[in-house]
């Protein structure tokens, strides 16, 4: 290898792998999405846009789009808000910062599959810790706090907690079609907000102190005013990034659904990654799986391009 051909040798393997592993699959998925291809059955028929039409009309797939949308639109705003909230609180502490940071970051490190199984156990309808605790709280101070009966115009017996206590009926969580998707969302938020917190903490260290003092001098007396006028705008680039990465991650939710609900009950947790897995891998409907893959890629590319656009527009002032 002479020094003149060196670049070729250095770049060659990477380029080859990019083509084979990242770019070719998109083209293959695009092609297969117009067929009824299945493995072991080489004669694939061209079916035109039938797979895509199914995604738009068939109830299984509209449920898929619905549960994916619910998941993303719940997990992203809440985990971003909690991440920001935790970062602001921790950043203003005098002591104990590192301890909270460590604790909130733990779920990010732990294998989600393992923790999902633990959550399932904690949420077990009869022997789970969550329902046990809720039941134990009935008739105590905890109930009077959480049935909101002390608020004006709220009848404690008719609130969710009051009701559950009165009938001693607590949700089945993952097995209840009204609760399953929210429970999966909760685990997603639990797992992801620490990551957002760390990114926000890094963003906060980038805000010059003088700016805060200047704002205070100029009459931004309350903490809220300073947040609105200085901190929030300065965190603009961080927020764009945090929202993007949270969105892409939540679009890809799979572990919790596969291990805990298998898309059910009655397809209420049938998210896209799980649909790809079930249709293509388990049922060998590769054409359909490829079409979902393409729809998925379009969503993800769209989010990333919006992010790039916002970054180009310079949402930062620093």
């Amino acid at each position: 290898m002479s020094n003149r051909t060196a670049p070729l040798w250095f770049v060659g393997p990477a380029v080859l792998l990019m083509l084979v592993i990242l770019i070719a699959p998109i083209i293959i998925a695009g092609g297969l999405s117009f067929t009824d291809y299945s493995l072991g059955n080489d004669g694939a028929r061209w079916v035109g846009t039938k797979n895509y039409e199914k995604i738009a009309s068939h109830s299984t797939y509209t449920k898929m789009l619905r549960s994916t949308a619910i998941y993303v639109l719940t997990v992203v705003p809440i985990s971003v808000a909690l991440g920001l909230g935790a970062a602001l609180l921790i950043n203003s502490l005098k002591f104990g910062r590192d301890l909270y940071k460590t604790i909130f970051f733990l779920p990010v490190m732990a294998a989600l599959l393992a923790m999902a199984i633990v959550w399932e156990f904690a949420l077990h309808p009869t022997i789970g810790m969550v329902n046990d605790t809720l039941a134990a709280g009935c008739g105590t101070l905890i109930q009077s706090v959480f049935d909101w009966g002390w608020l004006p115009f709220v009848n404690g017996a008719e609130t969710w907690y009051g009701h559950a206590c009165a009938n001693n009926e607590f949700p089945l969580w993952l097995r209840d079609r009204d609760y399953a998707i929210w429970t999966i969302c909760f685990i997603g938020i639990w797992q992801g907000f620490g990551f957002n917190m760390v990114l926000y903490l890094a963003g906060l260290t980038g805000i010059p102190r003088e700016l805060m003092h200047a704002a205070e001098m100029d009459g931004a007396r309350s903490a809220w005013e300073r947040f609105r006028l200085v901190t929030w705008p300065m965190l603009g680039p961080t927020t764009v990034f945090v929202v993007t990465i949270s969105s892409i991650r939540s679009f890809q939710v799979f572990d919790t659904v596969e291990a805990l609900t298998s898309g059910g009950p009655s397809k209420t947790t049938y998210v896209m990654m799980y649909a790809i897995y079930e249709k293509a891998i388990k049922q060998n409907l590769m054409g359909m799986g490829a079409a979902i893959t393409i729809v998925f890629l379009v969503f993800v590319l769209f989010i990333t391009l919006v992010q790039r656009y916002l970054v180009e527009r310079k949402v930062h002032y620093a």
Partner: protein
Amino acid sequence: MIPAHYIGEGWKHAVLILGAIIVILPFYVMLSYSFKSPGEIDRNEGGFFGAQEMMVDERCIVVGGSREDCTFRPVVFNYGKAFSEAPLLRYLLNGLIVTLSIFLIQVAIALPCAYALAKLRFKGRDFVFGMVLFCLLIPVHAIALPLYIMLAKVGLTNSYAALIIPWTISVFGIFLMRQFFMTVPDDLIDAARMDGMSELSIVWKVMLPTAVPALLAFAIFSVVAHWNDYFWPRIVVTGNRDLFTPPLGLREFKGDADGSFYGPMMATATIIVTPLIVAFMLAQRRFIEGITLSGMK
């Protein structure tokens, strides 16, 4: 009287502690149940460690063990079963093989490429860099299906190769290293060339040592992602237990488990989660740096 700023500090801690309790809850459940006997788990008693009274394993009796051989302390029973019921050691070893191979190949491919993109002049450099930027947009999980079909066509599913190949190219690693190498002064490289070093040895003997901090962060990023990954192994490994990674092993355990096996299952979960958690505790700053690497641009 308590000064106002103490009250302010106080409610902040109250809120954060409440959050911390919810965050820790499943870790507490996992660890606690990995210590307890099935009866204690069912009745939800015994505090954190359980009473650790001797218990009899009914299944062991059914298959003909004597009463003495089948009596255990719950904690010994749970962790013992975790290893004996399934080849957990094998799973852990597989996890190690897969994550380390992925990382080493990623570096072997990305480092020379990043060096060439940052420091060498050649035709098509901008094109290659544009390709890297485009590929940064593609989440590998999203294209799992066509990758699976390709691997199936060449007969590679159910092999270590299938677990490793899709991750051998890390465009993120290339991008990161290129940005890093841009900051390395040209003089250093010129001096190395004067000394008669080949370009290849410049990559490994000059550039690599300067990049150690960035590489370490990238290593953490890569190892954490692939040790915990469940989606890809689930797709390419079907049935062949010898290839199971730790999350797959745990999932299999859950599939077979009935009520009396929650203890061993939680022990398995603990064993799988512990290595990274301990490493994180020991080198927090580095880990946070590594995991949030993708946030620094």
